[in-house]
């Protein structure tokens, strides 16, 4: 509390000081002097955000333009002094990534993974939400059970799934064999490994979609359905013309959120398949992690990967927003 007050007055003082300056007596100065109190109240948040998000981001972008690694960043530890010898190398980290064959294949799989996961999240989540939105015996019990996967920490679920899907000793294959089928190489075959990680992620992500969409469904006025029924609309027509448009505000947000989360869904891939077999299920973030933390840490390379992932997501978000706006969505 104390710091907030201190920060506030400091920021307020500068704001006022600037407002009084002879040159800045324009619209901006007037704006600042009129709203100095608001600025003062915002200052703590702005400062914390700058320190926690702004600085690492700027630092990351800077590192991505150098050839910094763990070996050439200067430091002194006890009797050892390592000199700083890293240099500014411009965009060469980026060109190296973009021109490598690895990048395109990783990107293609990351996009496939994101699209399939989000589509299944949304589809299954909407189905369950519709089921749970009608009067049903034991409805609260079902709701609780369905939310459970979300309540378990992701890494715990990932480990449990890894064990369940083990080829030789796993429960899933034991059940398949007991039912007279052969076991499948859930985690050991490139194709099935991809299916497995998608299945695990869908299992993890559906509850959130379901809850969010359930909230959206409950916000749609009952009268609309009644009026439609009176007009003789079929259930499909009601779904198509009332439920879906009514869910729009919620859907657009959760789909965007889901896309960003899934695109960067680190624990599922890293813990279930470790990117294997043979790197086939590695997405961009897990690959960037490997760059950063394997052997001598490659700060510049991994920073470049990070910035690239950020840019991809920003572009995606902008395109998505444009598309929504074209459809008349005020978002």
């Amino acid at each position: 509390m104390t710091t907030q007050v201190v920060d506030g007055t400091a920021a307020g003082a500068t704001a006022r000081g600037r407002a009084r300056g002879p040159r800045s007596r324009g619209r901006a100065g007037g704006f600042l002097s009129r709203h100095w109190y608001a600025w003062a109240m915002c200052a703590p948040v702005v400062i914390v955000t700058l320190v926690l998000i702004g600085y690492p981001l700027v630092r990351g972008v800077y590192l991505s333009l150098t050839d910094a690694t763990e070996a050439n960043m200067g430091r002194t530890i006890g009797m050892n002094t390592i000199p700083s010898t890293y240099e500014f190398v411009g965009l060469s980290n980026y060109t190296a990534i973009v021109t490598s064959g690895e990048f395109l294949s990783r990107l293609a799989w990351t996009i496939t993974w994101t699209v399939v996961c989000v589509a299944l999240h949304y589809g299954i989540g909407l189905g369950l939400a519709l089921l749970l939105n009608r009067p049903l015996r034991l409805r609260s019990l079902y709701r609780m059970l369905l939310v459970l996967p979300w309540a378990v920490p992701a890494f715990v679920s990932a480990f449990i799934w890894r064990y369940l899907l083990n080829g030789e000793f796993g429960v899933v294959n034991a059940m398949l064999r007991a039912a007279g089928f052969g076991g499948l190489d859930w985690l050991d075959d490139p194709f099935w490994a991809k299916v497995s990680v998608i299945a695990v992620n869908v299992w993890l992500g559906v509850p959130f979609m379901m809850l969010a969409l359930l909230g959206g469904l409950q916000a749609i006025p009952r009268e609309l359905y009644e009026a439609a029924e009176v007009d003789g609309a079929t259930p499909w027509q009601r779904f198509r013309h009332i439920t879906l448009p009514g869910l729009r505000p919620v859907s657009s947000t959760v789909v965007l959120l889901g896309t960003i989360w899934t695109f960067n869904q680190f624990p599922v891939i890293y813990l279930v398949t470790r990117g294997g077999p043979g790197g086939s299920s590695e997405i961009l973030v897990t690959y960037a992690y490997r760059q950063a933390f394997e052997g001598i840490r490659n700060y510049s390379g991994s920073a470049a990967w990070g910035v690239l992932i950020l840019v991809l997501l920003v572009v995606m978000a902008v395109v998505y927003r444009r598309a929504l706006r074209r459809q008349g969505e005020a978002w």
Partner: protein
Amino acid sequence: MRRGISVAAAAAALALAVSACGGEDTPQQSAAPAPSDPAAVSGEVTWWDTSDATNEGPVFKELKADFEAKYPKIKVNHVNVPFADAQNKFKTAAQSGSGAPDVLRADVGWVAEFASLGYLAPLDGTPALDQPEDFLPSPAGSGRYNDKTYGVPQVTDTLGLLYNKELLKKAGHDAPPKTFEELKTVAQDVKSKAGADGLALNVDAYFLLPFIYGEGGDLLDVTTKKITVASPQSVAGLKVVEDLIKSGAAAKPAIQDSYTNAETAFKEGKVAMIFNGPWSNTDNLGGKVFKDNPDNFGIAPVPAGSVKAGAPTGGHDYTVYAGSKNLDASYLFVRFMDSAESQAKIAGKLGLLPTRKSAYDMPEAQGNAMIGRWKEPMTAAVERPWIPEAGQLFQPLVEGYQKLATGGTTSDAMAQDVAKAYQGLLKGWSL
């Protein structure tokens, strides 16, 4: 707007200038003067022990207590850090300068990397390096980087062929296979006659090395700075593995949890032979088919290829963090923990192989039958390239091996891919 750009450029230039003049070219080092009286040294030493906390930890704790009894002014904090996390954890702590231990039990493959990054204290001329001529040459080599000693070897190990004697006998073989051809025959006989799988492969880079070494190949040639993983000899070794899998002599290998699956199958008697090291002794002897019948557990050197029998040298070294506030106490602790007596005690209780020649002759070590039984496999141990990049060599290899094991690539293509990845990692090395 224009001024904004020039300010940003100036800031960037300044940052560059500051970072460019960080210091001199070579790491500066000054050997700490040895204290005249060890008993006068006091302080607190934090030791990160990466051994198996349940099976091995208690013995190391006993040794630590002995040390504290001998040097009452020094307190040792024994912290068990899981082996898999220790490398990254140490690097993060060592670099930030806070939270790093004074003494670390480091894998032999980490020492050169840590030393090159300035994290470790050189031990030459300190009490930590005691009777260096007593060490076996291959483990001792792992602690050296740029002609300085940064780690003293604690234990050494290698891979051997572990086998289930009863299953081999059922298949009509009294002796374990000595060559790769025999390995294939015995494995196939076990499969057809003994009702179990012959061989379980662990799809891991380290466990691929005996095949490469056996045919005379290696990952790198350090003296000539050459990448040899795609040499005809190395590829011949990969072909042996490919053939073992394709012919069905080796059971279809698991890719995920490969180590655990192979171990479990071996302990349950579902497979007759695996490659593994002395660290798995305790684990194996607790298995279903060995618990009541320890004589059933066979240890042999890895089978030989057309050139030799060879398995990688593994093990652990004691290292001291360069930023330690208690260097003198740390040196004394390392000296105590790595004495021949301590090594013999570890060997006797845990069956881990000493790195001191003299420790092998001590009665305590000889009391453990495992020490004698691993003596022959150890003769096949091949020294690995102790270079800072060693830690990065395994990832491309394991990815390639996974593809090979699932039939996604051929030996030749795999070797080319791995060699290409190595070229990216090792600047200035030739193919």
